[in-house]
C-alpha cells in the first residue's frame, strides 16, 4: 500500500486530502512555495477548465520529481492552444508542439536526443487530449508503448474534441451529445457499444506503469505522476478532466463532476504495472449515475419532460460493470 492510501484525512464534502493535516513530506506539490508553476497563470482556458487544472498539477509534480529537468511535448488541442497565444506562453519549461497526432513520437525523439547528447537525467513527458491520444495519435502512442520508450504520456480526457467545438471522440461516453452526435433523431446522443478505454489497452502493452487519475483527487494525481517519474520506460496516465464548455456544466462543478465520475463507477481509478492491475481506488458508497448525468447538458435529452430515458439504466449498467470488473467498492467493515 502506498503512502497516499493510508491517508484518510479527507476534508468535509471533498475527497481532497487536507494538506494541513498531514506531515510536510506528504503535502502536495502545489501547496509548497517552491512549486515550479510550470503552467503559469494568464493562459486562456475557460473558467473551471479541468484540463488546465490537471495539467498544472501533473506537470508541477513531474517537474519536482525530475528536479526541474523536464521537457514537455504537447499535441494540438485545447491545452496547446490556450497556453501559447504567442508571444505569451504559460510554459515555464522547455515545451514543444508539433502536430495533433504525433506527440508520443516526438517525445520518443526528444528522449533519444537526451541519451545521445549526454543528458540522460533530462526526462520527457508527452501530453494530449483524448482525441489526440485515443484517436489520431493512437498509432504513435502504441508504437511508443511497444518500444518501451522512456516517455511519460499524459492524456487529459475530457471525452471529446473540445478545441474544435465539442465533437465525438472514441472517449465520448454513450448518450452524450456532441456536435457530431446531435441530441435529435431516433437515438439521440452518442451510441452504445462504441468507443475505447485506452488505459486498458495501455495495460495490454505490458508497459512499466499505467494509471488513471482525476482532478477530483489531486493528491492521488500527484502521487501517480511522482511514481511514474520514478520509473523508466513507457508510462501512461489518463486523467479525467471535466470540460464545462463541452459538457454543458457549471464552471464550479468541475471537481464535483470529476468526483461523481469516480463515485458512480463510470471512471475507474486504478494503477497497473507491467500488464497487471496493482491498485484500485475504492469507492466508499456508489452514487447512482443519474446524479452525475443530470448536472450536464450533454445528457439533458435523457431527462426531457421529467421522464427518464431508458438509456439511463444502460449507463447505470456500465457503471455497475466497472464496479464489478475493477472491484471498486470498498469492502464493508468487518466483512471477511
Amino acid at each position, binding site marked *: 500500500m502506498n503512502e497516499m492510501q493510508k491517508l484518510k484525512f479527507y476534508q468535509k464534502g471533498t475527497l481532497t486530502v487536507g494538506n494541513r493535516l498531514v506531515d510536510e513530506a506528504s503535502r502536495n506539490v502545489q501547496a509548497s512555495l517552491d512549486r515550479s508553476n510550470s503552467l503559469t497563470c494568464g493562459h486562456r482556458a475557460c473558467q473551471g477548465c479541468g484540463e488546465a487544472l490537471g495539467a498544472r498539477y501533473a506537470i508541477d509534480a513531474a517537474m519536482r520529481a525530475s528536479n*526541474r*529537468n*523536464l*521537457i514537455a*511535448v*504537447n499535441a494540438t488541442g485545447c491545452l*496547446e*492552444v490556450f497556453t*501559447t*497565444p*504567442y508571444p505569451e*506562453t504559460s*510554459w*515555464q*519549461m*522547455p*515545451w*514543444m*508542439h*508539433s*502536430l495533433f*497526432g*504525433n506527440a508520443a*513520437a*516526438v*517525445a*520518443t*525523439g*526528444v*528522449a*533519444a*536526443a*537526451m*541519451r*545521445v*547528447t549526454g543528458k540522460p537525467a*533530462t526526462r520527457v513527458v508527452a501530453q494530449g487530449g483524448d482525441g489526440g491520444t485515443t484517436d489520431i495519435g493512437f*498509432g*504513435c502512442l*502504441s*508504437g511508443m508503448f*511497444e*518500444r518501451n520508450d522512456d516517455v511519460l504520456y499524459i492524456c487529459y480526457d475530457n471525452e471529446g474534441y473540445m478545441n474544435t467545438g465539442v465533437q465525438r471522440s472514441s472517449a465520448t461516453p454513450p448518450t452524450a451529445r456532441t456536435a457530431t452526435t446531435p441530441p435529435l433523431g431516433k437515438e439521440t446522443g452518442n451510441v452504445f457499444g462504441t468507443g475505447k478505454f485506452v488505459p486498458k489497452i495501455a495495460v495490454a502493452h505490458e508497459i512499466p506503469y499505467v494509471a488513471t487519475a482525476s482532478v477530483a483527487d489531486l493528491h492521488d494525481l500527484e502521487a501517480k505522476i511522482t511514481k511514474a517519474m520514478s520509473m523508466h520506460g513507457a508510462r501512461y496516465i489518463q486523467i479525467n478532466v471535466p470540460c464545462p464548455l463541452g459538457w454543458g456544466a457549471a464552471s464550479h462543478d468541475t471537481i464535483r463532476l470529476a468526483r461523481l465520475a469516480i463515485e458512480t463507477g463510470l471512471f475507474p481509478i486504478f494503477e497497473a504495472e507491467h500488464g497487471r492491475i496493482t491498485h484500485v481506488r475504492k469507492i466508499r458508497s456508489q452514487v447512482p449515475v443519474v446524479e452525475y448525468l443530470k448536472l450536464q447538458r450533454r445528457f439533458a435529452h435523457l431527462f426531457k419532460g421529467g421522464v427518464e430515458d431508458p438509456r439511463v439504466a444502460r449507463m447505470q449498467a456500465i457503471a455497475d460493470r466497472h464496479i464489478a470488473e475493477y472491484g471498486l467498492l470498498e469492502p464493508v467493515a468487518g466483512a471477511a
Partner: protein
Amino acid sequence: MLEQIEGSKAMAKVIGLCRPQVVCAYPITPQTHIVEGLGELVRTGDVQNCEFINVESEFAALSVAIGASAAGARAYTATASQGLLFMAEAVYNAAGLGLPIVMTLGNRAIGAPINIWNDHSDAMALRESGWLQLFAETNQEAADLHIIAFRLAEQLSVPVMVCVDGFILTHAMERIDIPDQAMVDKYLPPYEPVQVLDPEDPISIGAMVGPDAFTEVRYLQYYKQQTSFRLIEELSREFKREFGRESGGLLRNYEMADVETVVVAMGSVNGTIKDVIDEMRSEGLSIGLVSLVTFRPFPTRALQQALTQAKDVIVIDKSLDTGMGGPLASNIALALRDLAHAPKMHSVIVGLGGRPVTKAALHRVFRQAMIQPWEGSHFLDLNDRVIAREIHRRGKARRSGPAAENILKILESEREAAIIPTETRP
C-alpha cells in the same frame, strides 16, 4: 576508398560517416536497404553514439526525427513514395519549425495504381513543403549529397531531402569512393542548433501564430531559401576542394557551349541523356544538357543564365501533374518567361512508374522537338493503341470497370495475340 558497392549501402556508409545521432527506420521499397545498412553499422559499432529507432510508420519516423532535432540531436530518416505521403503533415511541420533533418527519398511512383518503381512523383508531391530538394545523378553523387545536405541543413536550419532514383540508383552496384571519417569530420562540424529544448534555458517551440505574424514567418522561410543559392554553390566548391570531385551545386552544364537546343532533366536519367547528346553531337547537331541538382530552392537565375542563348529547351519530367503537365516544365516555363529572347519549351513526360527511358526514344523525341514541336506534354513511348482501345471501350458502357485493370487486360490480350499465330486461333 573505392568500393564496388550497392548504391543504398554506399549511402548508408556515408550517412554513417556524417555521425547521425538519431536514425528512424521504416521499411518501404526502394529505400529500405539504406536504413537496413545504417542499422547494421549501428549494431556493429561502426556508427557510434546513435539511436536507431524502429518506428511504426513514416509519420512516426519523421515525428521522432522532429523531436530529436528540436532537442539538439542530428536526425536522419529515409522514405519513398507512399511513405512520404503518409508523413506529409510532419514534412511540412519539420520545415515550418526550421529543423535541419536530412531525409533520403528513394524516388518512386505514387499509387493508385500501386507501383514500386522509379519516378519523381513523390518528391514533386511535396515540392512546396519547405524542404530543400537535391537530386542525385549518380550513386557517387547520391552518397556525396548527404554530406553536403547535413552541412546545408544545419547551416540554414532547414530540412533537406536527398532525392535518389529508386532501383536505378538505390539498387545498382557501382564503384563508389567512400571518404574517410576525418575528411567528413572536417567538412561537417558537429550540429549546433539555433533553437533547442533545454531545461537550463526553457523556450516554447511550435506556438500558435495568427494572421498578424504568419506571413512574416513564411516570408522568412522564403527569404532563407532565396538567399541560399550562393551557399549551395559554395558548399559544392568546398566539397570539390576537400573530396576532389564535383557533387551538388545548383546545376551542371554538359556540352553547353553555344548550343541551340538544351535538354533539362533531374536525376539518373541524365546519364542516358548524356550518351544521346554525345551521339547527336557527333552527327553535328547542336545540343547540350543542364542537369538540375537543386530543385528547391528553384535556381531561376542560374537556369536563366544557362538557357539564355538557347532556341529550344526540352524539359524532361519524371512525374506528372495530371491537371497541368510536367511540374519541372511548369517551373522552367516561369524561369524562361523573363528572358529577352525566350526559347521555345518542349515538355516531355518520361519514365512514369519505372518505364525504361531508352536512348532510341530520346533520340526520336529530341529530333522531333527540333523539327516538329508539339503542344503541351509529350508522353515518351506512350502506347497510343491501348489508350485508344480503352477510351473506345469506356464509351460503350457506363460500368466500364477500373482503368488500371482494363489496361492490363488489353495488354495481356495483345500479348496473347502476338504469341498465338492467327491461323490456329479459334
